[in-house]
């Protein structure tokens, strides 16, 4: 569905993207994650055909976005960071206009407006002037605009920025619903958002792809293995020593009564932990699998690359 190869972007002398290579199949839900100014928006703008790359190619559904933007853009719905709304229009007028310029046949426009409004949850606001809508509803109108021509690929640039926690949850659920039927790329610097909604996570830092994998895959990569947390009633230090000796974990650390065990392959050892501890007479209180949170992964990846040559990027 999306094939990006060796994509670079210069703003004057300043390089914002360094040879990005990414490939995603149809139906993928991709989260672009990175600190502010990492190049996420630049990458999304290039994929959506808003601006051209300096070098490299981006192929959407078999069509080069730079060579044949009009054809490729028929398959793309794009919501920029600030929804592109005309405040003086009603939601219906606006969606009708968006449908028209996106090539929806005139006859099917009213049906498409209703369908997109229903998907975005704004069907009862269709006759309201956009300028009088709340921020959450503006965002929904923006999403309805991106959906109006039933695109195969949906690009959402920070869809929840500036919303309150309730609105964030609503929009997140909305995106999860939409993602069931199409390929979605969504960017964020808010980690849980990406963690919940996206199957694939791409971490962008200083204009480069720092990592690309599923959440679990990233956790294994960055920590070097799976992690299990164990809580015993007392003597956690000696319990940690015992576990390391008997089951040979890569690391076994006891801190504040909690033992953190790490190893590359946990599948066989997982069952033996409880048995070993109980057998040795420890009171086992808790045993849980603890893959590194996205915050930790993100922090690790972006900080470890701090010394790379890429300069700071202002979007």
């Amino acid at each position, binding site marked *: 569905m999306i094939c990006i190869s060796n994509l670079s972007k210069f703003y004057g002398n300043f390089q914002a993207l360094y040879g990005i290579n990414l490939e995603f199949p149809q139906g993928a839900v991709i989260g672009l994650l990175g600190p502010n100014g990492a190049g996420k928006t630049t990458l999304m*703008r290039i994929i959506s055909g808003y601006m051209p790359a300096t070098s490299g190619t981006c192929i959407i559904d078999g069509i080069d976005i730079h060579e044949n933007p009009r054809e490729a*853009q028929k398959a*793309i719905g794009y919501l920029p960071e600030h929804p*592109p709304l005309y405040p003086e229009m009603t939601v219906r*007028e606006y969606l009708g*206009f968006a449908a028209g*310029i996106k090539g929806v046949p005139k006859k099917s426009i009213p049906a498409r407006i209703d369908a997109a409004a229903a998907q975005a949850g704004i069907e009862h606001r269709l006759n309201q002037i956009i300028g009088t809508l709340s921020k959450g509803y503006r965002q929904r109108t923006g999403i309805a605009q991106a959906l109006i021509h039933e695109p195969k690929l949906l690009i959402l640039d920070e869809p929840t920025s500036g919303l309150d926690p309730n609105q964030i949850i609503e929009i997140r659920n909305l995106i999860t619903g939409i993602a069931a039927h199409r390929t979605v790329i969504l960017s964020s610097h808010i980690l849980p958002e990406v963690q919940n909604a996206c199957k694939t996570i791409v971490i962008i830092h200083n204009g480069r792809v720092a990592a690309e994998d599923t959440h679990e895959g990233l956790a294994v990569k960055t920590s070097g293995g799976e992690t299990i947390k164990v809580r015993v009633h007392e003597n956690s230090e000696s319990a940690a020593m015992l576990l390391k000796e008997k089951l040979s974990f890569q690391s076994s650390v006891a801190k504040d009564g909690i033992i953190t065990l790490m190893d590359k392959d946990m599948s066989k050892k997982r069952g033996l932990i409880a048995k070993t501890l109980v057998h040795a007479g420890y009171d086992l209180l808790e045993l849980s699998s603890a893959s590194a949170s996205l915050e930790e992964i993100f922090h690790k990846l972006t900080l470890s690359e701090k010394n790379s040559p890429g300069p700071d990027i202002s979007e």
Partner: protein
Amino acid sequence: MRNIFLIARRELLSCFVSPIAYIIVSSFLFCAVYFFIGTTFTERSTDLSGVFANLAILVFMICPFMSMRLFSEEKKNGTIELLFTSPIDIMQIVIGKYFAALAIFCIMLAITLLYPLFLQIMSGVYWPKVLLHYLGIFLVGSAVLGIGLVCSALTENQIVAGILGVAISLSLLLISWISNQTTGVLRAVIDEITIMAHYQSFLKGIFDVRDIVYFMAWILFSLFLSAKILESGKWRN
């Protein structure tokens, strides 16, 4: 064609929501009536060439403000991202917006037709010449709207676009006035390139295809230039 129509219709819709359009149209009409009454009542003549000479100066001052918002507003609101990520050519966007501004200008001119109609009832006018005056002022307006369009593509601040447009159009006016003080090759060159010089033949009641070609070239050039400016903006961003 459908895309051009959609862009133009949306632009017109927005235009008449903002007070700026009403202010511009009404001030133009107010000045136009003042010229009409002043000329016909003081000079006691049904020849409208003097009125139309004054109207052209008004057009030079007002038309850049009619097209100042066309792209500046889209850039400022970020709605240009919607247009640029839709399967639609930049040239279609430019033409659609230009037509919207032109439509408002035509409405303004159509309203001023009331005055020659009034004169017709009172004493009669020579319509072929009056219609030629109208064609002339329409072409002048189209050319000046083109200047405003280019300025609007340059900046996201509509006030800057408006003032820049007026500055350029008034400079052109000034150059054509200066040409009256010159002779020889310089005068010939200025007369070929300035809008006012080509408008003069319409005022005199002369229909010359070369003038039409001049205005057409001017309009096409400004449409082309606006499209190129927007396109290069996509590269620079």
